[in-house]
Each structure stands twice: as structure tokens, then as C-alpha cells.
């Protein structure tokens, strides 16, 4: 509803240039009675002299010498929706009179907003500090703490970034499915694995927000999207830093408890190593002193954590520590594609990440290298699936997971087109997330097919044998 605030101050000449583009100006001053008064006027902007010429409006007295303003404001009505194309400018200055009797206006400063140049979501982000200051004032006025709110459900969804759990479910379910295809399945252990892995992931999400808030990365980001820039619940004052820290610790406590229970009931050294490594990587992803994501290692850490560790972890829980090449090979495309989710989501964050010392690959690499890097890594993910099948390591139905390959082209085209447009990238990021999800689901389906085929048509070859 609000269509302006103190977003951009600019030079008087720029203010006059913008003012000239409106069909009329709104002349405003404060009358002797203390009330402001406005009247529409037609203006002639003399850009050479940096002044505005206009006729004395009838029936009102424009104060000469006092500070007055001229405002241009534009909307385009959209019936049934509201309006769009919002832009405005206000130029302040002082009025005088030229020898011809016309009034003159000498501009001193200007301010305005144009949603074509500053998109509304960014406009909102730039005002978050003002909202905090205002609520502090309201709190003092009403004598109690006034904070922004969300319902518990929405707040949980937002603070934990719950929808990203697909990145955990995919590798864990594939790991369980591979074990099941090899004849090993324990439902209780499978459920515990999912709970433990999801807890680590949620703890990581929340811890990431805590450390990014402490290190200033999210604060500096004025272009967050639903896929990037963190949950922002700390910046918005929806949840305190302290509470977020406690939530993260709580999830880690659940994860460690589940891990200990699994170790107690299904011990293996492989599980011990994977569990400890997984917890440490998730903590030191953003936590000092390692701050892996700040050192250009975030993508690699994500690949290892949400690829081999999750998938192999789920597998060794089921198999009580048995390790084979198949789950490892299956984890490679998942690892690459999940790292690419982070990688593409970091593209819009790179200005803020760079300013806060978060050296992600899109911060470190030039545009072309980032885009080419995406294509190479995505192609490698699909190549591993195909080669894995050809080599007889992965089952033939795993070729189903090649179906989402065309989406890679869409992500590539989107990166080329919207590389510097954070909100244009939102659709690209959504498609990229689907690449990982679809490949993962199809890989899982492939193993369900394998299990079904083993039951229904024993003896039918499911792997290529040379």
C-alpha cells in the first residue's frame, strides 16, 4: 500500500530530470496555520539553469523564500488488481519570482523511488532497520514490547526453512532403497535415520542463520528471495538470535540422540565416522573458527554432507556397516546436484556475501566461469548415472533419472538471462531445485522397480553384466 519511503536521495539535477517526466507537479508548502497545502501546477524545467518556472496558482499564496517541494507521482491502474508502475519523486527547494512575474523554484535536494529500478521486495528489505526503530518507539509508547508476529506454523516453516528438507529425504531414501534392493530393510532404523538426518539438516539451517546474522551476511543482503538470503527471522525481529541458537542446539541434541541410539542398536565404525563427520561438517559450515562456507568450501561441504554422508549413512544403518561401491556411486550425482542448489542460490547473494567476506564460488569466480561451472557439474551428475549403469554398478532402471536432463538447459538459459537480476533468478532457482528433486525421486523409483522386479520376475537381469 505504501509506495514510498526514504530509499534514495539524489542530486537536485537528477530530481528535476525525473520531475520533468511527470505530466504535472504537486507544489507543496506549509501554511502560516501550520497545515501543509498542495496544489497541482504545470512546470517548465530549465535544466541549463537548474530551476523550475511556474505560474502563481490562483487563490493561494506560495511563500517566497521558505522551503517548498514539488512532487511527481505515477501509477498505472490495473482493474481488478490495483495498480502498478509506481514511481515518484519529490524535489525540495525555494521559490522566488523572475522579472516576467513567473515563479521560480531552485532545487536543493531530491528523493524518490521507481519500482522499475528498485523492485518492491528490495525496497522492503532496505526499510527493515526503520521498522525496528519504529517498533522500539511504539513499545515505549504503549509500555510493553511490540514485536512483529507470524503464526507458529508459518514461523516454524520460515525459521527452519522446512521445504529444503527434500535435500535430506532424497539421499536418505535412496540409501535405504539400495539396502532394501540388496535384501536388507529395518523399518524402525529407517524412520530413526530420517529423523536424525532431518534434525541435522534443520539444525544446520538455523545455525546458518545464527552465524550469518552474527557475521552480518544476511543483514547486508537486500535482495533475499524465497531460496536465498536466509530465513531472515532474526533480521525481521520475529525470533531472537538467542532463541534461534537454542532451536539449533535443540535440533542438534535430537540428531545426536538419534545417532547414539542407532550406534547402540546397529553399531558400525562406518556409521560412527559418518555420524561424527556429518555433525562436525554441519556445525562448521558457518561456525567459527572453520566457517567453511566463508572460505569457498561451502559447496564442497554441502556435496559431501547431502551426498555421500547422508546416502551412505542411511545405507550403513540398514546394512550394519557394510560398504559397497553402489551407494557411493549413487551418491555422486545427488551430491553434485545438491551442491548446485546452493551454488545457484548463491548467485543473487554474491554482492552481500562478498561484502561480508563470505567467499562462495559465485563470489570468487567470474560470471562465465560460474555459468560454465554449473553446466559442467550438472552434466557430470547425469554422466555418472549413465556410466554407473553402463559399468554395471547402478541398476538399469536408474536410467530413469536421466529424464530431468532438459531442465539443466533451462537453468543455464535462466542464469545467462537473469544473472544480475535477483528476482528474475527466483524461477531459475526453483527449476534447479527440481533437477535435484526429480533425479533423486527417479533414482528412488528405480530402486523400487528393482525391488519389485526381484519379487515379481526373479532372474530378470537388472544390472548390465560384461
Amino acid at each position: 500500500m505504501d509506495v514510498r519511503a526514504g530509499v534514495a536521495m539524489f542530486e537536485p539535477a537528477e530530481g528535476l530530470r525525473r520531475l520533468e517526466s511527470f505530466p504535472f507537479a504537486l507544489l507543496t508548502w506549509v501554511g502560516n496555520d501550520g497545515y501543509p497545502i498542495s496544489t497541482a501546477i504545470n512546470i517548465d524545467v530549465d535544466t541549463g539553469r537548474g530551476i523550475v518556472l511556474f505560474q502563481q496558482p490562483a487563490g493561494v499564496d506560495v511563500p517566497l523564500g521558505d522551503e517548498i517541494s514539488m512532487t511527481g507521482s505515477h501509477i498505472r491502474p490495473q482493474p481488478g488488481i490495483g495498480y502498478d508502475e509506481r514511481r515518484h519523486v519529490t524535489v525540495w527547494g525555494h521559490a522566488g519570482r523572475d522579472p516576467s512575474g513567473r515563479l521560480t523554484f531552485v532545487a536543493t535536494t531530491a528523493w524518490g523511488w521507481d519500482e522499475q529500478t528498485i523492485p518492491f521486495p528490495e525496497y522492503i528489505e532496505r526499510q527493515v532497520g526503520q521498522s525496528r526503530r519504529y517498533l522500539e518507539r511504539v513499545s515505549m509508547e504503549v509500555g510493553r514490547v511490540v514485536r512483529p508476529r507470524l503464526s507458529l506454523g508459518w514461523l516454524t516453516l520460515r525459521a527452519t526453512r522446512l521445504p529444503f528438507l527434500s535435500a535430506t529425504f532424497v539421499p536418505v531414501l535412496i540409501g535405504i532403497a539400495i539396502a532394501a534392493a540388496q535384501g536388507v530393510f529395518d523399518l524402525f532404523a529407517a524412520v530413526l535415520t530420517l529423523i536424525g538426518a532431518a534434525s541435522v539438516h534443520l539444525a544446520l539451517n538455523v545455525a546458518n542463520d545464527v552465524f550469518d546474522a552474527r557475521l552480518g551476511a544476511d543483514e547486508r543482503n537486500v535482495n533475499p528471495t524465497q531460496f536465498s538470503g536466509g530465513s531472515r527471522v532474526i533480521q525481521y525481529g520475529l525470533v531472537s538470535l538467542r532463541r534461534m541458537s537454542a532451536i539449533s542446539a535443540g535440533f542438534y541434541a535430537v540428531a545426536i540422540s538419534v545417532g547414539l541410539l542407532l550406534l547402540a542398536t546397529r553399531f558400525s565404525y562406518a556409521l560412527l565416522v559418518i555420524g561424527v563427520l556429518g555433525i562436525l561438517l554441519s556445525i562448521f559450515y558457518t561456525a567459527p573458527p572453520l566457517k567453511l562456507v566463508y572460505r569457498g568450501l561451502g559447496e564442497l561441504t554441502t556435496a559431501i554432507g547431502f551426498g555421500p554422508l547422508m546416502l551412505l549413512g542411511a545405507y550403513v544403518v540398514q546394512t550394519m556397516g557394510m560398504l559397497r561401491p553402489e551407494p557411493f556411486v549413487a551418491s555422486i550425482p545427488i551430491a553434485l546436484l545438491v551442491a548446485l542448489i546452493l551454488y545457484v542460490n548463491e548467485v543473487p547473494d554474491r554482492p552481500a556475501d562478498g561484502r561480508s567476506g563470505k567467499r562462495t564460488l559465485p563470489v570468487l569466480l567470474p560470471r562465465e566461469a560460474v555459468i560454465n561451472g554449473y553446466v559442467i557439474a550438472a552434466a557430470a551428475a547425469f554422466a555418472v548415472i549413465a556410466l554407473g549403469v553402463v559399468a554395471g554398478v547402478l541398476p538399469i532402471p536408474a536410467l530413469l533419472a536421466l529424464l530431468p536432463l532438459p531442465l539443466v538447459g533451462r537453468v543455464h538459459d535462466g542464469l545467462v538471462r537473469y544473472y544480475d537480476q535477483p528476482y528474475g533468478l527466483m524461477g531459475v532457482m526453483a527449476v534447479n531445485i527440481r533437477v535435484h528433486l526429480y533425479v533423486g525421486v527417479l533414482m528412488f523409483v528405480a530402486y523400487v522397480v528393482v525391488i519389485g522386479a526381484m519379487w515379481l520376475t526373479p532372474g530378470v537381469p537388472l544390472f548390465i553384466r560384461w
Partner: protein
Amino acid sequence: MSWLPREVIELVDAALVTELTVVRKDGRPITYPLIPLWDGEKILMTSSILFSRKLEHLKDNPHVSLSFSDPVALGGRAGRATIQGDARVIDGDPHTDWERVLPLWSAKEPVIIQFLKSRVAFPLFFERSVIEVVPRRVFYWPDGDVSRAPQVSTSPPSVSSGEAA
């Protein structure tokens, strides 16, 4: 029953945007486009806490003016008006106080209902205050021609103060 001229009420009712001018502590006028809502007696607007500088100015100085000047924002109407008045900010609970103006707001900006459904995406945008303006004086240009003096109407003395207590 409002003392405002019928033609001016029609402008307020039709306007998608008005230019609200508030006065800063140092006397500088600052103008903000907002959607004006007519409740039959007062002009209501709502402002997110994100864009709350105007609210701070209003709490310091309740004198305001509202300009209805843009024929595009007025649905093609040629008339123009400036309403001076006293403003009050209502923000005891920014999460819910403003919801009473939602029916009037959505009548002018229907898409806001869709936005509200995805409140989780813009939580601070929907923490809002209501600005309530009691009109004191009206300048009205019937055909929008400002080269002619406006018709001026003033509120009767019985109209209650809109200033914050």
C-alpha cells in the same frame, strides 16, 4: 454525516492514490503516496512499519494535507482537491489493528488479499498502522483548473478533534 462536499467525497472514494503531506520537525513538508479509504466520516490510510517515518512525523505533528490531483489515479475525474486535517496514528497492535480497514483497502486494491495469504513471505509488510485523518478544510477545483481560485470549505466547529490523546 460528513460536512465534506459530495464531489470531494466522490474523489476520495474513487482515488487509488492520494499524496499525503506531513510536516517534519524542522518544518519541511514531506509527501507520501498512499491509498485513501473513506469510512463515511474520516479518511483512513494504512502504512507498513517498514515505511514508518511518516508515522513518526505524524506523531510529532498531526497536521496533514491530502491531495487528490492525478486524473489517472482518480479514475478519469477532472476535479482536484486538497484536504487539510488532523491525523491520528493507531498502532497499539500492528499485527491486527489495521485489519479493520482491509475491506475498504481490498475494494481498491483487490490483489492485497492474495498478498495477505502469503503473509509469511512479507511478514513486516503486514505489520501496519492505521492513519485516521479528520478533515478540517478543503480546497476544491471543480474542473481541475488551478489557474482559477479553489472553492474553500471549512469544518464546522463541532467536529471532534482527531489528534492523538
